[in-house]
């Protein structure tokens, strides 16, 4: 009986520290990989600028939230970043299309080799890199960072009622000697790890907050929506046809301009969603988005280039592998093993600094043993 509890604890630990993060991280990778695989399949090049496009989308949402907060408006329990998501999506799409018209279209007309597109996309990556850091800076900013107001600027009582006593604090500003109010908008949590432990009496538990739920729900709805779009609508089918056989698609009268336009529409929106969701969960830091390129590309190649289902699967696969391989299994082992065998030191295969190395390793293995990926996408 006690062993059963130990088993449960072990499982709960894994669920809280491994599976939940892997699911949320995987959702984000999957969304990013979907965009990249579409661009790969239809526009036929590796979109290195995707990470920074995600950063751009996240940045817009963040600016929106800061603007809202500036006027003393807090939207708890709804994360304000979510409200700005449509704006972020719109602006990111406009950015993507603008870049396409000014940069990529020329090379399409010239029928340049794919490597030129990649180089151009790297140039754009740097452009966006500098732009996002210029507009919002390179440091980490949380969506619910602490905001400071003068005492007259906000209705302290109303805010306290809305956000809870711990979120609103009045103090005296040392510099100006005036009263200021500091507001830290909380994240809505269904239950914390501690509440779970207290409720169940177990020594391990997991917590669930709104943002995690939204991430997964949003991701799944997008997957389903995209599936419906690609499989059941005329435009979606024409895009699949275009990706499959461009010459024949043109012969059938499919308009390449429209296909390109819709591709950027979808990819840009996906990037904005992925970027915003990740930012809501972990905070906005442009560099992190750039680093994501590697696992995203790994996900795309593992799943098969140009294959949307592959991208989704690849995203979750990479996320789970990254997290499970760099985890410290000491606690789990101690729950599962009998007392005398308990492990003292760490039981880690690889350190967490090597997370991205893991995705790359997977990438290499796939390239060596099965370059077309799980779903046999194009090798080119």
């Amino acid at each position: 009986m006690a062993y059963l509890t130990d088993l449960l604890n072990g499982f709960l630990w894994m669920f809280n520290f491994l599976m939940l993060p892997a699911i949320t991280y995987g959702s984000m990778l999957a969304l990013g990989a979907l965009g990249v695989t579409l661009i790969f399949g239809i526009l036929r090049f590796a979109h290195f600028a995707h990470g920074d496009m995600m950063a751009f989308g996240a940045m817009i949402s963040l600016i929106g939230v800061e603007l809202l907060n500036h006027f003393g408006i807090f939207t708890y329990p709804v994360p304000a970043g979510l409200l700005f998501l449509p704006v972020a999506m719109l602006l990111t799409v406009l950015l993507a299309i603008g870049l396409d018209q000014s940069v990529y279209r020329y090379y399409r007309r010239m029928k340049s080799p794919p490597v030129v597109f990649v180089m151009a996309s790297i140039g754009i990556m740097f452009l966006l890199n500098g732009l996002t850091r210029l507009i919002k800076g390179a440091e980490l900013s949380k969506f619910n960072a602490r905001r400071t107001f003068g005492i007259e600027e906000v209705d302290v009582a109303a805010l306290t009622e809305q956000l809870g006593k711990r979120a609103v604090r009045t103090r005296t500003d040392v510099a100006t000697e005036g009263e200021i109010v500091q507001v830290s908008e909380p994240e809505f949590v269904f239950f914390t790890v501690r509440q779970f432990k207290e409720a169940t009496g177990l020594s391990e538990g997991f917590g669930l907050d709104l943002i995690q739920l939204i991430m997964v729900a949003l991701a799944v709805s997008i997957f389903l929506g995209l599936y419906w779009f690609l499989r059941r609508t005329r435009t979606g089918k024409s895009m699949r046809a275009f990706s499959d056989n461009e010459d024949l698609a043109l012969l059938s009268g499919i308009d390449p301009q429209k296909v390109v336009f819709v591709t950027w529409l979808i990819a840009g929106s996906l990037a904005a969603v992925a970027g915003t969701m990740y930012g809501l969960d972990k905070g906005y830091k442009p560099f992190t988005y750039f680093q994501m390129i590697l696992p995203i590309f790994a996900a795309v190649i593992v799943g098969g280039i140009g294959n949307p289902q592959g991208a989704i699967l690849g995203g979750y696969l990479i996320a789970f592998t990254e997290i499970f391989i760099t985890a410290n299994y000491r606690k789990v082992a101690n729950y599962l093993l009998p007392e005398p065998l308990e492990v003292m030191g760490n039981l880690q295969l690889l350190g967490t600094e090597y997370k991205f190395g893991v995705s790359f390793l997977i990438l290499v293995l796939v390239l060596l043993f099965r370059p077309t990926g799980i779903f046999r996408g194009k090798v080119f």
Partner: protein
Amino acid sequence: MANSRYWLSFGMLAILIAVTGWVQGWSVALSLLTVGLISAVMALGLNMQWGYAGLFNAGVMGFSAIGAIACVLVSMPWVTASMSIGLETLLQNPEGQQQAIETLQQDLPRRIAAEQQIGVAWLIGAVSAVLAWGINWALRSRFSGGRRAIIVVLILAVGLMFFQNRFDPAIRVIESTGFGDDSKYLGGLQLPILLAWIVGGGLAALAAWVIGKIALGLRSDYLAIATLGISEIVIALLKNEGWLTRGVLNVTGLPSPVPSAKALQLAPYHLEMGTSLIVNKVAFLAIIVLFLAAFLWLAHRALHSPWGRMMRAIRDNEEAAGAMGKDVVMRHRQVFICGSFLLGVGGAMLATYVLQFEPAGYQPLRYTFLIWVMVIVGGSGNNLGSVVGGLLIWFVWIQAEPAASWLFHVLGDQYAQGGNEWARTMIDRAPQMRTLVMGMVLLLVLRFAPRGILPEALQRK
């Protein structure tokens, strides 16, 4: 006709350097010139890979870092030896050093034991790697690719766990002991630094051979992603494996091939302080120029040899060349290796110039990206173009920051003085303009002047 372009570009560069020297001082100008030329060495390497063979290497940074770490591994003193020598010196004059002497006496045997354990660990690692490879080879006809991959991974994982078991405690000892600055890592072989440059190139070439086996022969996009990934892994290794590289603590005090400014002030040179600084820099520059000239000459010979002609034929029409029986992939590998050699040497040169190895300084892709812009702007396929590109782009990159700051100050100072937060933040962020400007430069050159300043000298059909 073509010659005038060369004179024009080099002339313009000379003017830029001269103006910098006049406005900002000769020290700055010399520094610009030196790093510009070092970058030119790296651009030359990348140019070989891209201009001769059309290979997209997005992992330039990784190769350079390998060259840089070679400086550490070849030329820094072996820490355990330093410790012994240090102990002896202290024992000769032990007043007030009791604590230090005791620590050293304790640590030395622990360290030696740890080093032995490291040896054992690597032996285990080697055995499991050989085992995995052997089983993979033996089973290759009986099992499919996917299953063999799983078996290989399992063997390696088990081997890794045993390896860690020996390795981790040993590493902890290494990373916590030492003597003065020579501490917390294994150290190097204390050989001359110029040898380190060559070794650096060699190690980078070796890495290129390994990567080439994996990633060449696939589409250029794949090579880009693969090289990017390798480079990230290399940098991660260098940042985290403190026992090898001191990680984020950096390795300072790399030996220089020329006497330092301070040494020049003493016997037998007896130079003035100002002159000594200049002479030190000029001497270093001279060595770089020598190396660059040698590489340029070699590259020129290679380009105009039958080998070079074949490379270009392959690049221009890969299918036809393949049909004619030329082993395209092998040729690509040769170019990839040679180019990476230069990247490694360049990385070693850079580390030696700044006299330290700083893993955190390898900003992902920005480093790689700059070299790419140098190649494209200078003229891909043209060796001298790499030199022009290297100097010019480095100049722009360095000068863009003060220029942007100046511009932002001019535009924003009035607002910033008035306490406008936003204006002040923007002024702080002026350095970001560099990245933006570089991105624009690349895009503009790609679009409007794709052949670069000094286009490829030989005729293309």
